[in-house]
C-alpha cells in the first residue's frame, strides 16, 4: 500500500485532532500572548500575585505528597499481589480495579461521609470522648490529599503489579542464598528493578492529582483551590477568560515538565540506559 493511502487512512483522525484539540487550544492560549503585540504580561501578572502562586504551590505540593504516599503504600501491596497464588491475585486485582472503575464523584463523596462535621471520624471521636466538639477535617488540604490518595493508589498498584510479576523469582532467592534477609533482598534487588514501574506509576499519579477536578472541588472547598478548580472558577464563575487561559497553559506546561523530570530521574537511576528486561 502506498504512503498516500496510509495518510488517507490517518486523515480523519488528524483532522479531528487538529480542529477540535489543537485549534481550540491555540485559540484560547494565543490571546494570552497577544495584546497589540507579543507580550508575556499575563504570565508576569499571574506570578506576581501571591494568591495565584499559592494555588500553584499547593497543587504541586499536594501532587507530590500524594505521589510519595502512593509509592509508599503501593509498592508493598503490588509486590504482595504479584507474588500471591493465582486465585488470590485475581481477587486482589478486582478489589484494586473496582474503586478505579467507580466514578470519581462517588469516591470523593465517600470521604465526605467519613471526614464531614457529622461524619464517621467526628462521630467516633465524639462518642469516645476524645473531642468535645467536631473538628474540621473536610474542606482542608488534608481532605484533598487523602481523597486524591484514595483516587490514585489503585493506579500506582496496577502500574507496579506487572513490573513485579516480570521480575524472576529466582533473583530474590539468589539474593537470599547469598546472605540477604527478606528485607535486604527486597531493598537491594527487587526495588531497583521495579523503578521503571514506580516511574510510570508516579507520572500517572502526579499528573492525575495535578489535574484532578472532582476531588479538590468536593473535598477542598473554595479556600483550598487547586489549579483545575481555579481554572473552572475563573472561566465559568468569573468569566475571566484571560486568567483561565493563563492557568490552562501553566497546567499544560507543568504536566509536561513533570513527565520530563520523572523520565530524567528514571534515566539517572537506570544506569544501563535501557529498560530492564
Amino acid at each position, binding site marked *: 500500500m502506498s504512503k498516500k493511502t496510509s495518510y488517507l487512512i490517518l486523515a480523519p483522525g488528524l483532522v479531528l485532532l487538529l480542529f477540535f484539540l489543537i485549534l481550540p487550544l491555540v485559540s484560547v492560549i494565543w490571546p494570552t500572548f497577544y495584546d497589540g503585540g507579543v507580550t508575556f504580561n499575563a504570565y508576569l501578572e499571574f506570578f506576581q500575585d501571591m494568591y495565584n502562586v499559592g494555588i500553584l504551590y499547593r497543587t504541586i505540593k499536594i501532587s507530590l505528597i500524594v505521589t510519595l504516599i502512593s509509592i509508599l503504600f503501593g509498592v508493598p501491596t503490588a509486590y504482595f499481589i504479584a507474588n500471591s497464588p493465582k486465585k488470590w491475585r485475581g481477587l486482589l486485582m478486582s478489589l484494586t480495579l473496582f474503586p478505579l472503575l467507580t466514578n470519581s464523584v462517588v469516591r470523593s463523596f465517600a470521604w465526605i461521609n467519613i471526614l464531614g462535621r457529622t461524619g464517621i471520624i467526628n462521630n467516633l471521636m465524639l462518642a469516645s470522648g476524645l473531642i468535645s466538639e467536631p473538628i474540621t477535617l473536610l474542606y482542608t488540604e488534608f481532605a484533598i490529599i487523602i481523597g486524591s490518595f484514595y483516587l490514585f493508589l489503585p493506579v500506582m498498584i496496577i502500574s507496579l503489579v506487572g513490573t513485579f510479576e516480570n521480575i*524472576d523469582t*529466582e*533473583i530474590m*532467592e*539468589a*539474593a*537470599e*542464598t*547469598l*546472605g*540477604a*534477609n*527478606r528485607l*535486604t*533482598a527486597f531493598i*537491594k*534487588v527487587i526495588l*531497583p*528493578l521495579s523503578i521503571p514501574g514506580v516511574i510510570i506509576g508516579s507520572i500517572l499519579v502526579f499528573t492525575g492529582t495535578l489535574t484532578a477536578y472532582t476531588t479538590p472541588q468536593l473535598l477542598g472547598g473554595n479556600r483550598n483551590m487547586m489549579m483545575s478548580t481555579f481554572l473552572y472558577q475563573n472561566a465559568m464563575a468569573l468569566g475571566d477568560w484571560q486568567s483561565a487561559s493563563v492557568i490552562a497553559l501553566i497546567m499544560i506546561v507543568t504536566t509536561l515538565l513533570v513527565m520530563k523530570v520523572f523520565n530524567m530521574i528514571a534515566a539517572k537511576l*537506570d*544506569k*544501563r540506559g*535501557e529498560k*530492564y*528486561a
Partner: protein
Amino acid sequence: MSFVDLEDIRVSYDGKNNILKDLNLSIEKGELVSLLGPSGCGKTTTLRVIAGLIEPNDGAFSVDGANLTKVPVHKRNFGMVFQSYALFPHLTIKENVGFGLKLRKESKETIHKKVMEMLEVTGLADYADRYPKQLSGGQRQRVALARALVIEPKLLLLDEPLSNLDAKLRINMRLEIKKIQQRLGITSVFVTHDQEECFSISDKVAVMNQGVIEQFDTPEVIYNHPKTEFVARFIGFENFFDLTLVDDHTYAAGDGSLFKTAHTWETTQKVGTIRPEDITILSKQSGPAVNTIPGTVKVRTFLGKSYQYEVETPIGKLLVQDSDETTYTSGDEVSLYISEEKLILV
C-alpha cells in the same frame, strides 16, 4: 554421621500429596552428589530444602553436625547456582559477584580482591564492568558460579545449571565445574535430568522417582547394577522379562528357557533386564544351551556405528544393538545370547 544429612524429609504443599516422602540422604565432605530423575520427581524440591528455600513439613537437615532445619536461607551460607542464573540485571558483573561479600560487611579492598580473584578463576576478568545483558549464556553461567563460590560456601548447590546452554558448551562447562569443585574441595549437590551429564560429573548419584530416592550409589554401580526397574529404565535398560528362581543362580523365563546369572539376587528381584548393546545376536541355533533364546527379526534400524534390531522372542519383544559385520534383515530367524555377567535382576 555424614557431613550433610537429610533425615526423613517430608514436603507437601497441600497437606495431602507428598512431594518428598521421608527422604534420606547422606553426603560426605568434598563429594559432588547428583540428584537425577525425570521432571516432577522431587529433585529440585530436595535441593530447595537443602538451600532453605522450602521448609520441610517433617524431618531434619544438618550440615557438619549442626541442625539447620529451621535456619533461614540467608543465614546458611550455601552458594546456589540457579537454572535461570538469576543474575541481578541492575548490577555489573563485579557487583553481582561482590553482592554476598558486601552483605558480609567485608572491607572494600577485601571485596575487590576476592571478586577479582574469582573472576580470574572463572575467566571473566575482562567483563567485570559489564552488565549481565551484555554477556553470552556461557559467560552468565560463569558469573552465577563465581557469585556462588566467592562467599566461600559450606555447600555448593546447582539447579540444572547447564540446561540453558547448547550441547558443546554444556560439555565444556561441566568439565569446568568439576575442575573448580575438585580444586576447592567443596561439597556440592547437582540437580539434573541428563544421565550422561550426571554420570560424568558426579562422585555419587541419587536417582529419584516420585519423591523418594530409588538408588544412591556411584555412577558405575548405578550404570551397571540398577536396583529397581525405574532406575534401569531411566538409565537405558530397555528389555524386561519375568523370571522365576529354579536353582542356584538359575532362573526360568515364562516359556521355560533357562538363564544363569553370575550375581546373587534378592528373592524380591524377579524381573530380568539387559541393555540392548549387551545382547549378542547370532545366527539361528548357535550359542550355548542356556541363556540363549530364538527369535525373529522384525525391524532393523541403522544407527551409524551399529544396527538396532527389534526381535520377536518367546519371552517378548527384545531390542538388540549390534555392531557386528554380519547383518540380519527383517524376517531372519536368529538366536539371542544374554550373558550371565550382563543379566541384571530388578
